[in-house]
C-alpha cells in the first residue's frame, strides 16, 4: 500500500468513512474526559492547592523543619542505595534471560515479577518476620546489637524488595528484541567481553535503562506501605518522606503534609515527563522495540 494510505489508516480520527457518528464521538469523548478529570486531575490539583493554602511562605517553611529535613535525607539515602543495587541486578538478570536460552527461563521471569504481586504490607511483614525481635534472626541480631527493623537497614531492605523488578522488567523485553547479533559481531571482531558490553550493549539499552532507573527511583522514594511496617515511625530517624506525610496529616498539620507531598508529586510528574521523552526517542525505532516497551510498561 502506498505510504499516505498506510499513514492515514494508523492515524486516529483520520477522515475514514467507517465508524461511529460524530455525535456519538463527542459524547464518548466527553465522558472519558470527565472520568479522567475527576479521577486524575482533581486529586493532582488538590495536592498543590492544599499545600499553598496558607501562602507561599508557609509552604516553604515546611521544608526547614529538622524532621522534614531528616525525612528528605533518609528518602534520598534509601533510594541512593536501593536503585543502584537493583540496577546491577536488573542488568545481570536481563543479560542472562535475554541473551541466552536455558531451561526454566520463564519460571525465572515469573519469579522476578513476584514483588509486584505482593501487597506492600506483606513486603514489610516478611522482613519483620526475618529480622524482627521475635523473628528468625532476631535473637542473634539483638545479641550483636544490630538493628535492622525499626532502623534504616530495614527500610532499605523493604524498599529494595518492592522496587526489585522495575529495572529488570524494563530491560528484559528490550534486550530480547535487540537480539544477540551485534554482540556476536563485536566478539568476532576481537572485542573482549567487557568491551563488548560497555561499547555495544550499554549504548543500545541506554534509554530503557534510564527509564527503568527513573521509575525505580520514583517508586523507591514514594514507597509507603512496606516501609511503614518496618520503620517504627521514629521521628527524625526512621521516617521517609511518605511516612512523614502520614504523621503530619494525622496531626492535622495539613499544609506541611501537603507541602511534603507536593515534593513527591513533582517527582511523579518528572517521571511521567521522562517517560514521554523516552517514548519519543523510541518512536523512531522499529515497531518491535516499541512493542517490547509497551509490554514491559505494566504495573
Amino acid at each position: 500500500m502506498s505510504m499516505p494510505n498506510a499513514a492515514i489508516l494508523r492515524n486516529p480520527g483520520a477522515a475514514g468513512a467507517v465508524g461511529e457518528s460524530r455525535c456519538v464521538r463527542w459524547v464518548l469523548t466527553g465522558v472519558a474526559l470527565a472520568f479522567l478529570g475527576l479521577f486524575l486531575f482533581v486529586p493532582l490539583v488538590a495536592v498543590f492547592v492544599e499545600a499553598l493554602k496558607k501562602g507561599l511562605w508557609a509552604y516553604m517553611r515546611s521544608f526547614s523543619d529538622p524532621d522534614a529535613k531528616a525525612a528528605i535525607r533518609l528518602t534520598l539515602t534509601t533510594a541512593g542505595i536501593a536503585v543502584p543495587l537493583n540496577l546491577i541486578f536488573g542488568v545481570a538478570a536481563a543479560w542472562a534471560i535475554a541473551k541466552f536460552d536455558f531451561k526454566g527461563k520463564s519460571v525465572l521471569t515469573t519469579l522476578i515479577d513476584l514483588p509486584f504481586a505482593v501487597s506492600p504490607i506483606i513486603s514489610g511483614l516478611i522482613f519483620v518476620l526475618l529480622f524482627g525481635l521475635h523473628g528468625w534472626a532476631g535473637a542473634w541480631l539483638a545479641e550483636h546489637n544490630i538493628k535492622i527493623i525499626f532502623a534504616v537497614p530495614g527500610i532499605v531492605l523493604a524498599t529494595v524488595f518492592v522496587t526489585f523488578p522495575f529495572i529488570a522488567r524494563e530491560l528484559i523485553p528490550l534486550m530480547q528484541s535487540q537480539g544477540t547479533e551485534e554482540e556476536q559481531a563485536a566478539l568476532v571482531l576481537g572485542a573482549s567481553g567487557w568491551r563488548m558490553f560497555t561499547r555495544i550493549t550499554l549504548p543500545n539499552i541506554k534509554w530503557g535503562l534510564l527509564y527503568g532507573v527513573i521509575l525505580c527511583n520514583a517508586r523507591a522514594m514514594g514507597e509507603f506501605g512496606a516501609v511503614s511496617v518496618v520503620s517504627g515511625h521514629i521521628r527524625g530517624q526512621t521516617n521517609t518522606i511518605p511516612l512523614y506525610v502520614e504523621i503530619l496529616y494525622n496531626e492535622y498539620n495539613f499544609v506541611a503534609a501537603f507541602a511534603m507531598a507536593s515534593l513527591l508529586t513533582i517527582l511523579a510528574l518528572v517521571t511521567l515527563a521522562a517517560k514521554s521523552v523516552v517514548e519519543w526517542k523510541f518512536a523512531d525505532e522499529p515497531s518491535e522495540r516499541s512493542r517490547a516497551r509497551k509490554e514491559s510498561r505494566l504495573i
Partner: protein
Amino acid sequence: MNVQSYQLKQHSILPGFGLSLGYTLLYLSLIVLIPLAAVFVSAGSLTPGQFWAAISHPRVLASYRLSFGASFIAAMINVVFGLLVAWVLVRYRLAGRRFIDALIDLPFALPTAVAGIALTAVYAPNGWIGGPLGRLGIKVAYTPLGVILALTFIGLPFVVRTVQPVLQDLSKESEEAAASLGASAPQIFKKVILPELVPSLLTGFALAFARALGEYGSVVFISGNMPMRTEITPLLIITKLEQYDYAGATAIAVVMLVTSFVLLLIINVLQKRATRYQF
C-alpha cells in the same frame, strides 16, 4: 567457554552467562524468595486449628469482604471506563492527546500516601467534591464508597494500558470488511472489535484487581479504618503486628499471598491465550 554451563544452556559465544545467572539467582533468593518463604514457614508453626481461627475471625472476614468486594467493583469500573478512555485516546483526534496519555500513568507514578491524602482532601465532608455530595446526602470519605473510589484511582492505568496496544493494532480492514458486508457501527463493535479486546480486558481487570487487593497507602486515609466496616485486610495485618500477634498477621498474609499468586498465574495464562488466534 564457561565450564559451569554444561547442558543448562545452548552453546553461545556470548560471555558472562554463569556470572549473570549466578548473581541473579543469589540476589533473587536473598531478597525475594527467602523472605517470602518466611511467611509460609511462620504460618506453618500454627496448627491447622489455630490457622483457621486466625483467618476466619469475623473481623478478618469483614476485611476480606471489604478488600475483595471493593477491589472487584473498582476493577469493573476501570474495565468500562478504561476501555472508553483507551478508545478515545487511540481512535479520536484529540487536542492535548499526548499530555492526557502521559497523565494516565499518574496513579502509577504517584506515591500511594500522596494519593491517599489528596483523595481524602477532595472527598472529605468539607472537600471539593465531598462537600457538594454531602449536601446531597452521599457520604464518600470514611465509607466503603471512598475505598472503592481510591481503588479505582489506583487501578486506572492498568486497563487503559493493556487495551491501548490492542486497539492500536486493530486491523482497520476488518472493520471496513464488516462495513462493506453491511454491518452497522454498533454491530461492528459488538461482533468484530469487542471479541478481539476481551483477552486484554480480562488481563487488565486481573491486574487492576490484584493491585487493588494489596493496596494500603491510598486507601488507609480515606477509609476511616473502622473495624468490621471500613477496615481493609492489609491494615488488619499491621494492627496484628503492632499487637505482636505475629501468628495472626502471618496467617492472614498467607491468605493474601496465595490469592496474589493465583491471580499472577491467571494473568500469565490470559496473556498467553491472547495470542492464540494470531497469525
